[in-house]
């Protein structure tokens, strides 16, 4: 073809991003959900559409109830894209709109997406979202759009990116300062906003990073582990 798009890319990635979420700390306040909306220009879905199951929350808080009323215990579980190493959404996309980037992020290329929605069918965590209509914000919400994040058009899939714009910014800042990326310097919006500090983001390729140590702590499990899709989000809870 004459043009090489591959040559510029790094041979082996320096980082492998992952996240740990402490379920014993999560209070279910949904600050992460709101922060994600603001950071990533998520469309505002009208109540009637939301009732039809068309909400777009790249991170959601699932609730599970234990026991019988009035003796009920509620468990909260924030669920976002698990950025699986063997992501089932990737091979089924006919146009490479969803692919694995060298740093292990499962990324969505909006311009390529034709909207087959196969990826959403094949995602066991149901964390892929579709733009059924042209996105909409009630005025003046459109004035607070984050300029670092593209607004998605009608007919394409979207999903959590681990705030890839913040990851890129963090790497650039570190490069300009001539230093490696410090552990904890990069925080996705959900991590930054969590008042209970239940979420930790970091580099899994660095064994000394906080997220790596938490993942190895013995309290970590992965969601739907038996499917073998190798998620990079670790849920921490007291071992029973």
């Amino acid at each position: 073809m004459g043009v090489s798009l591959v040559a510029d890319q790094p041979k082996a990635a320096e980082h492998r991003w992952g996240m740990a979420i402490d379920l014993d700390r999560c209070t279910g306040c949904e600050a992460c959900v709101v922060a994600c909306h603001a950071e990533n220009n998520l469309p505002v879905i009208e109540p009637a559409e939301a009732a039809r199951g068309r909400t777009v929350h790249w991170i959601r808080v699932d609730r599970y109830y234990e026991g019988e009323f009035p003796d009920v215990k509620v468990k909260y579980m924030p669920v976002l894209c698990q950025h699986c190493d063997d992501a089932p959404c990737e091979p089924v996309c006919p146009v490479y709109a969803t692919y694995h980037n060298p740093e292990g992020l499962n990324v969505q290329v909006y311009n390529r997406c034709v909207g087959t929605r196969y990826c959403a069918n094949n995602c066991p965590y149901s964390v892929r979202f579709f733009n059924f209509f042209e996105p909409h914000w009630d005025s003046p919400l459109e004035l607070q759009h984050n300029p670092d994040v593209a607004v998605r058009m009608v007919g394409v899939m979207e999903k959590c990116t681990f705030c890839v714009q913040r990851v890129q910014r963090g790497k650039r800042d570190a490069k300009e300062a001539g230093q490696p990326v410090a552990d904890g310097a990069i925080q996705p919006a959900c991590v930054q906003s969590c008042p209970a500090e239940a979420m930790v983001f970091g580099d899994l390729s660095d064994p000394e990073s906080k997220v790596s140590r938490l993942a190895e702590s013995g309290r970590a499990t992965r969601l739907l582990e038996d499917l073998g899709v190798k998620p990079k989000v670790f849920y921490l809870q007291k071992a029973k």
Partner: protein
Amino acid sequence: MKSNMATTVHTLPHDRLQEDVWRPLRETSTRYVITVLLVGAVALWGLFCWGYQIHKGIGVVGKNRPSMWAFYILNFVFWIGISHAGTLISAILRLTHAGWRKPVTRAAEAITVFCLMIGGLFPIIHLGRPWIFYYLIPYPNQRVLWPNFRSPLVWDLTAILTYLTGSVLFLYLPMIPDLAQLALHTTGWRRFLYRTLALGWTGSDREWHALERAMKLMAGLILAVAVSVHTVVAWDFAMAIAPLWHSTIFGPYFVVGAIFSGIAALLLIMAVIRKFMNLEAYLEPRHFENLSRLLFLMCLLWLYFTVSENLTAWYGNQPHEMQVFGTRVRGQYAPWFWLMVVCNFIVPFVLLGIRRLRNITTISISSVCVLIGMWLERFLIVFPTLAHPPLAAAWTTGYNPTWVEISIAVSTFAAMALLYLIFSKLFPIIAVWEYRYVPDE
């Protein structure tokens, strides 16, 4: 019907046969014109709905999260299934030298071509951004990107385009001698059309041998393509790790289902053209009888596959699969499931299995039931699974189709009728030359 039984086609002179088959090409009744206008209007309404959907966004249909695939995919599988009526059955009959195939083959092959044209549209209608559907087609492009050959959807596109090409050839090749004859007997634009399409056929020995060789080759190839096409359609589901989709049985299960619904569609269309084109002398009860035996066989095979699929899922008792299985067999979707069993098994088994009950009317009733049942089967494959993904928090209770997708689904039936009506006005629906070339096998 009895009066026609006396004059079977073998006692008829060839000229009479040619006359009977060519008559619809010359004479156009008011009834025909009204039907064409009617189905044409419905088909246009479907096109309008599609335009509306593109203009507003795919949200005008009932899709939601997690039910991202719905009506359009269901209808896609249904139409591709029916397309197996034609080419596959015609190829089997040709390869086994079944002498009774002669009046059946062309009607069947035409079904395949039109069903594929309609079925092939559905995945495009289904897309979020249908105007760039060509991103799936492998060709050197400015995006410097090939499609993802690991995706079952790319296999699907390849398979269906191959099948469509093969089916058009399979329909066209044995039509050439008829077209040459027609060119000699017509004037005006028809003569121009037939002469162009006849490709200068003169009827020499060499040409007949070439045609025979080509048809043998095509019959063999198209069989392989037909089986693989529906296997690939099944793999669109089976390659996904969704509960009750990820199953090795899906390939053959879909092929059997496709042939099952295909024969039903063929029998139904045969019954219709027999009545409305006055072809009672050619489409005899024995043709219906023979094809209905095939339908009966596929009915039993369908039962076998359905039991295999559900018994293994139930016995395995895996939580994610049992959730879907439960809603299907005894929950929300149970009425549809058991209606499917009645339509696909009980009705055809009784009506076709008991000889006293078997005639063209009961065969037509069975065929309608099978078509409804097979549509329901695809419904039961697509909907319950998607509504129950592995994480219970994401479950939804149901799916409500909107007027847009219902209109489009209905209009495709009208489009099928329209294409068939136009075809039957332009080309002889029975291969006349086959009676002359091999008088009696």
